C-alpha cells in the first residue's frame, strides 16, 4: 500500500511503525506537517495517490487540523478528525464514555474559580483537577484539602491559558497502585499492560513499572464500547480496577506503544500495520464498487 505518515517528531513509536511498514515493502511517504500548507482544495503535502494516511502528530492542534484537511481531500486518515476531537479534550472524552454507558469517573466541569471550588467541595478530598487538554499527566493535581484547592485554582486563574480556565474536576478513584493501558484497533485489543507506581500518576512516561495484563471478558467489552464511543481507530484505552469492576478514565488517540511493545510478547507494530493494511484494503474495495 501507499501510506503517508503525518509527523513533526519521530519518536521510538514512529520508528517502530516505519521499520515494520518498510520491512513489508510498503511505499511510505513521511510528511512533516511543519513544512506544508493545507488549502481548501489541495495541499503541498504529497497525499494525492496515498491509500491511507496515519496521523502521528503529537501536537493536538496540528493533529486536529491536519486530519480534517486530509480527510477533505478524500484521503482516508487514521485516526479520524472526529475521533481526535473527542480524545483531545478530556471533557468531550468523559461525556462520550458516559453517553455510551461506559463506566467512567464522576466528573464536573466548571468555568470559574468559585464554581470549581463548589465542585471540588461536592466531591470532597482527595479529588482530582485536570486540564481539559494535556498529556502525560502534566498539570494534573490531586487535591487533598480546601487550602490546596484554593491555591491551585488561584494559580490556574492567574497563569493559565484560557483552556486552563475550564476546570475539570473528577472524583479520585482508589486503585490498587496500578492502572491498565490497552492498545486497541477499532475496539480489538492488540495487547494490554499494567502500569504501577507509588505515585498516584502511573503513566509510563512518568516512570511507572509495566507488566503484561490479560483482559477478562468484562474488560474486553469495555474496550470495545469505549473505542466505539469515540469513533474507533488506533487507540489507547486507560482503565482502572475498582474492586470487582473497571472504570475507563480516558481514550487516547495519539497512542504510544513502545512501552507496551517492550512489555508483551505481542509484536505491537506488526499488529498495528496489519490493521492499517485492512483499512487501506477497505478503501480499495470501496473504490472498486464505485
Amino acid at each position, binding site marked *: 500500500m501507499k501510506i503517508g505518515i503525518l509527523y513533526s517528531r*519521530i519518536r521510538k513509536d514512529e*520508528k517502530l511503525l516505519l521499520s515494520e511498514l518498510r520491512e513489508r515493502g510498503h511505499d511510505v511517504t*513521511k510528511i512533516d506537517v511543519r513544512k506544508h500548507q493545507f488549502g481548501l482544495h489541495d495541499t503541498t503535502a504529497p497525499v494525492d495517490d496515498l491509500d491511507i494516511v496515519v496521523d502521528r502528530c*503529537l501536537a493536538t492542534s496540528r493533529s486536529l487540523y491536519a486530519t480534517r484537511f486530509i480527510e477533505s481531500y478524500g484521503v482516508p486518515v487514521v485516526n479520524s478528525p472526529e475521533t481526535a476531537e473527542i480524545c483531545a479534550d478530556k471533557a468531550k472524552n468523559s461525556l462520550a464514555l458516559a453517553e455510551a454507558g461506559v463506566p467512567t469517573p464522576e466528573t464536573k466541569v466548571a468555568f470559574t474559580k468559585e464554581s470549581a471550588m463548589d465542585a471540588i467541595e461536592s466531591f470532597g478530598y482527595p479529588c482530582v483537577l485536570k486540564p481539559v487538554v494535556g*498529556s*502525560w499527566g502534566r498539570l494534573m493535581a490531586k487535591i487533598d484539602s480546601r487550602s490546596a484547592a484554593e491555591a491551585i485554582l488561584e494559580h490556574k486563574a492567574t497563569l493559565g491559558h484560557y483552556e486552563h480556565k475550564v476546570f475539570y474536576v473528577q472524583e479520585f478513584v482508589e486503585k490498587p497502585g496500578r492502572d491498565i493501558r490497552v492498545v486497541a484497533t477499532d475496539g480489538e485489543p492488540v495487547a494490554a499492560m499494567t502500569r504501577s507506581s507509588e505515585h498516584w500518576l502511573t503513566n509510563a*512516561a512518568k516512570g511507572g513499572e509495566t507488566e503484561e495484563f490479560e483482559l477478562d471478558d468484562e474488560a474486553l467489552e469495555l474496550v470495545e464500547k469505549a473505542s466505539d464511543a469515540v469513533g474507533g481507530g488506533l487507540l489507547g484505552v486507560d482503565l482502572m480496577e475498582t474492586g470487582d469492576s473497571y472504570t475507563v478514565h480516558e481514550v487516547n488517540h495519539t497512542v504510544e506503544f513502545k512501552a507496551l511493545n517492550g512489555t508483551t510478547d505481542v509484536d505491537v507494530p506488526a499488529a498495528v500495520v496489519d490493521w492499517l493494511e485492512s483499512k487501506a484494503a477497505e478503501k480499495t474495495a470501496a473504490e472498486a464498487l464505485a
Partner: protein
Amino acid sequence: MTEAECAECGATLDLADDLETGEIIDCGTCGAELEVIDVNPPVLDRAPELEEDWGE
C-alpha cells in the same frame, strides 16, 4: 555507526544506522535535544521547544 556534531556543544555523537529525518536525539555530553535534519550525511540541529501539550 555514523557520526555527527552536536549543534549545541560541538561534541561528536555516534548515531545508529537506522536514523530517520525528524528523529529526536539527546546529546550525551550537554543534554541538548537535537533533531535529525538530514540523514545522509547526518545533520543535527537544536530540536524545537514543545509549544503546547503533546501526545497522550
